[in-house]
């Protein structure tokens, strides 16, 4: 497990919010942790895969997509706040995320 300082957690949070703002062509100030990704932003798997690629590249993580998919089947990320938590967990745990109880 990788220890993350508050600045890194904030950077991950900013990345997630900036990503959805750009992808959905919406002002970032209108997004909040409870914003529902599918219902309110029309988010889909391609959007999620694009975000995952950004996180993986920025923090050099080799997490496998199928590992993450299995995690999401157990615990879906439906809001921006949940995606932030998931992204932090990906950076913190990598492929071990399957064994993490978020």
């Amino acid at each position, binding site marked *: 497990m990788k220890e993350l300082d508050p600045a890194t957690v904030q950077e991950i949070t900013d990345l997630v919010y900036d990503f959805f703002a750009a992808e959905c062509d919406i002002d970032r100030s209108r997004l909040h942790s409870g914003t529902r990704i599918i219902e309110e932003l029309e988010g889909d*798997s*391609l959007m999620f*895969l*694009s975000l*995952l*690629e950004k996180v*993986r590249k920025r923090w050099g993580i080799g997490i*496998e*997509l*199928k590992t993450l*998919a*299995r995690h999401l*089947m157990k615990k879906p990320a439906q809001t921006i706040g949940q995606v932030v938590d998931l992204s932090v967990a990906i950076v913190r745990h990598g492929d071990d995320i399957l064994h993490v109880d978020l």
Partner: protein
Amino acid sequence: MGTTFCTWTSDCPGPLRGAGVDAERIDRFRREPLEGVFGPGERLRASRGDGRDAERLCAGFCVKEALWKALEEPYDLRECEVIADPEADRAEVLLHGDLAVRLRGTVLEVRIWRDPEEIRAAVLVHDGAALGEGETG
């Protein structure tokens, strides 16, 4: 995205094990191919610069997603290599790694429908002849 209807007659004799469909807008693929989704061969084929690279990627993604839905189980999307001809209603699918092992003994039937803005794909998984590493489904 509205409702569309696509029909065809399957010519595969094996029993159906699963079916999946997907649809995507082509313009979403006018960007760098995702490394976690497309393997090196697919990224290379989508860098021809002939104005149809986004269609190739979009068709490939639709087939991968449709297969995911047909299997109802996650797999590494790069293990399903899709060779999509922008003019054709079918695509060649090469299976690699764990996915090839998992789908040994099955036949994949792939259909693609296109319009100027959107591509739709359906994948049927039949029990049938054996498929192995790098073989065409």
